[in-house]
């Protein structure tokens, strides 16, 4: 299956929104300064935790979306996916 720019857009953008939401919820509930990693405080500032957290979440969501597209897109090739230009 070919990945073109539009499909990357379709993966990156929803994953971006999802990661932003997940980042906000996660760090609202958990103050990064209280996080212990392997028994020690990693000593990172809040802004860096928010930023790194965001990108980690984004990558995870991109991976999930790409996998979905890859699994479903192959089966749906020439099927549903090409009918997105449906007219009302």
């Amino acid at each position, binding site marked *: 299956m*070919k990945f*073109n*720019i*539009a*499909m990357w*857009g*379709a993966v*990156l*953008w*929803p994953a971006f*929104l999802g990661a932003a939401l997940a980042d*906000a*919820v996660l760090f*609202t*509930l958990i*103050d990064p300064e209280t996080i212990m990693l392997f028994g020690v405080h990693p000593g990172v*500032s*809040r*802004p*860096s935790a*928010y*930023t790194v957290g965001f990108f980690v979440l984004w990558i995870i969501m991109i991976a999930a979306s790409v996998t979905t597209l890859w699994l479903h*897109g192959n089966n749906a*090739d020439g099927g549903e*996916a*090409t009918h*997105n*230009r*449906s*007219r*009302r």
Partner: protein
Amino acid sequence: MSTATGETKVISLYQSQKKIYAKSVVGRFANLRVFMVFFTQAIFYGLAWLPWNGRQAVLFDLNARKFYIFDWVFWPQDVLYLTYLLIVSAYALFFVTAMAGRVFCGYACPQTVYTEIFMWIEEKFEGDRAARIKLDQAPMSANKLWRKGGKHFFWVLIGLWTGFTFVGYFTPIHTLMNEVFTLATGPWETFWIFFYAFATWGNAGFMREQVCKYMCPYARFQSVMFDRDTMIVTYDQARGEPRGGRKKSADPVALKSLNLGSCVDCSLCVQVCPTGIDIREGLQYECIGCSACIDVCDTVMDKMAYPRGLIRYSTENALEKSWGAAAIREHMLRPRILIYFAVLVALVGGLTASLVLRNPLKVDVIRDQRVMAREVEGRYIENIYKLNVMNTAERAQRFVVTVDGLPDAQINRGGLIAADSASTAASSVAVRIPVDTVKPGSHTIHFKVQSEQDAAISVTEKTVFLVPR
């Protein structure tokens, strides 16, 4: 992928994309959009600089984990308000979309607004549609370099300013400006300024309608919110067809005899469309409701001395049944709209009430686990509690702690807690009762924490008092 004939062909699940050169347009709706560009951007770029209570009016201070919005200071504990706000926004979108279609897309969406700004710059440097197409096909020259370079210079400048403003909502913008001028921005500030600038430059400069067509979820689920009485940009097929060219002198009254409708097939409506569709094919999901085709068609109708509105805002029902404006308005108030509206009013009312009645004091009582109940001075049973006080008001306050629930309970120490403006304070509170006044076991007591300055600000928290055997 190159084929045998040497043509470039992109194999895609979507249609292959060609660059869209949207012709600029003037008219009522274009003016409205320009107004909206100024209005929304005055808010976005301006609000970050607005002072309030000696600080930035709107500041999402991630470092201190506090959100300042005018008179309110929100803490992570207030996350419910954020959820509430998202629900209100979603309902507002349902309501507006069901009634008036994609007005958000056409006038207020940042994608539209920044694309509008970037296209304006593009036109200043590269000229109108025909000139831009020619320039893109021309080989590189000093002229092309200057035009493209100048365009990108201003695109990048606006992108950076946008990124700077964006970060200015998370770091106090005056501090950030000083940091920028002394090249002392922190690593994450620098990163986000450039990341946001890059996204603005890419989205408004290059992606443009692709974002609406392929990336925007709203474009895909809007059909759920549409019905046959939703206002949309429509082409009046009955009036326009059969389309075709004609002399300008052709008598508008005698069109029937020429076997022609009002559409002169000038294709301007296609040329101005930012998503490159032909509105005459009916409602399409790519249509962002920007009304550029309405504006341009009206100018053509004026030139031909035909009545305006061959392309106009209307509803599917109105087109089919030839309703006038009054009938359209009547059908606007259908049950769906009224229900959306009622829910929206209830939600906004609830949110407002809850914000107005918000208690600027929160108290958390934790029994001290290390010091369980103990006997002191041979005469008292003492329990220790840790009281965390959150003063969300923007002034320093002193809180008096009182206890009740047991007849002779009194606070031995820690009964006065001072908290700075918008900050927390903790106190170890020791509660004593005389020995043998109550039987062993656990007893419910209440702490009342009350502001010294304003008696109306108080919180009562329940906890237990342990009496050992």
